[in-house]
């Protein structure tokens, strides 16, 4: 990914062939990895992975590199932004493919089913928990993710996640008086 950060973005968005070739070489491993991971649940073959990856590159250079020109290096690293774009493209690719060709019987049931939002939705008084506290509780309890995994995502150490989790639960318990013996039940 180091090479990716060394790409001359101005030359790239001007359509310079050599810069495009260097960019493709540097970006392909990342785009390949993101597309494969994104399409894992779709049970697709190698050709679909290739086509979806090609869609990412097409989208990047389409209309005189319009999408690439929207990338702002001051806001995010190029690899991170590319990974987000690649994921979106891969999902779009599969949506188009399914709309165009796939009989409904071949679609995995998980994609047809309406998600049970009932379980996902919360009604915690506004302002009781911060957005980060909610996110951490979702990851730990709804997704059953490991503290270390969440810490890596949020670029903090595991202890910070544990501490944030602990404070969030204290607030919730205080609000709903879960542990209060005087509550009487």
């Amino acid at each position, binding site marked *: 990914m180091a090479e990716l950060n060394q790409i001359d973005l101005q030359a790239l968005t001007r359509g310079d062939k050599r810069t495009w070739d260097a960019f493709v070489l540097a970006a392909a491993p990342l785009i390949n990895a993101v597309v494969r991971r994104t399409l894992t649940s779709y049970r697709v073959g190698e050709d679909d992975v290739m086509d979806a990856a090609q869609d990412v590159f097409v989208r990047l250079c389409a209309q005189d590199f319009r999408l690439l020109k929207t990338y702002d290096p001051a806001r995010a690293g190029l690899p991170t932004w590319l990974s987000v774009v690649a994921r979106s493209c891969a999902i779009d690719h599969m949506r188009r493919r399914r709309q165009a060709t796939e009989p409904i019987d071949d679609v995995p049931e998980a994609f047809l089913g309406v998600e049970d939002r009932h379980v996902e939705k919360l009604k915690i008084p506004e302002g009781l928990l911060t957005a*980060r506290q909610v996110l951490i509780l979702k990851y730990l309890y709804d997704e059953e993710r490991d503290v270390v995994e969440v810490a890596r995502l949020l670029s903090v150490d595991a202890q910070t996640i544990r501490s944030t989790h602990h404070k969030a639960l204290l607030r919730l318990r205080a609000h709903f008086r879960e542990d209060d013996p005087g509550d009487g039940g």
Partner: protein
Amino acid sequence: MSTERRTPRSDKELWRSLASRPEGVPAAVSEMDLAAWLDGRLSEEAAAPIEAAVAADPVLRRAALDLADILGKPLPPAPGRMVVRARALVDFEVAREASGGGPFGKWLSGLRLFAGPRPALRQGVMAVAAVVVATGGFMVGGGLGESLAQQRDDYSATESAYVKTTASNEVSAFFAGDGI
């Protein structure tokens, strides 16, 4: 006063017991905002709406973890075919056209029918244009009838030459057969 005491629920049970109440539709997150958040470049205030949106959308939550995982480790090389196909999207010709191009190229660009990197389409249109020009020139130059007449003349000349050559060969064979 009741002597019963509520059994304290585990943290997970408490959280899940709260998970049955409605909340608002998650806000859309732009690709740039999500990337900035994944990179940890947002202030707490700027990150809050992104985190709220990610928290509200299970697909986005999984995506965020997946991307963080991929970005945090060395990656295997991409298949060569992927690199070759992607490189072909931008060719030297396109790069030249982007920096100027001939009058016909500029006219095509002016039509805005071929915006974007579609070298195959562009080359196809150029080929069709070449065929039209060639056909026009051919018709102006006398058309198919004259061409056929010319071809027929050429064929007659070739055929008479062939007959002469055959006769000549027969004479040679005759002398050769006699050992001359």
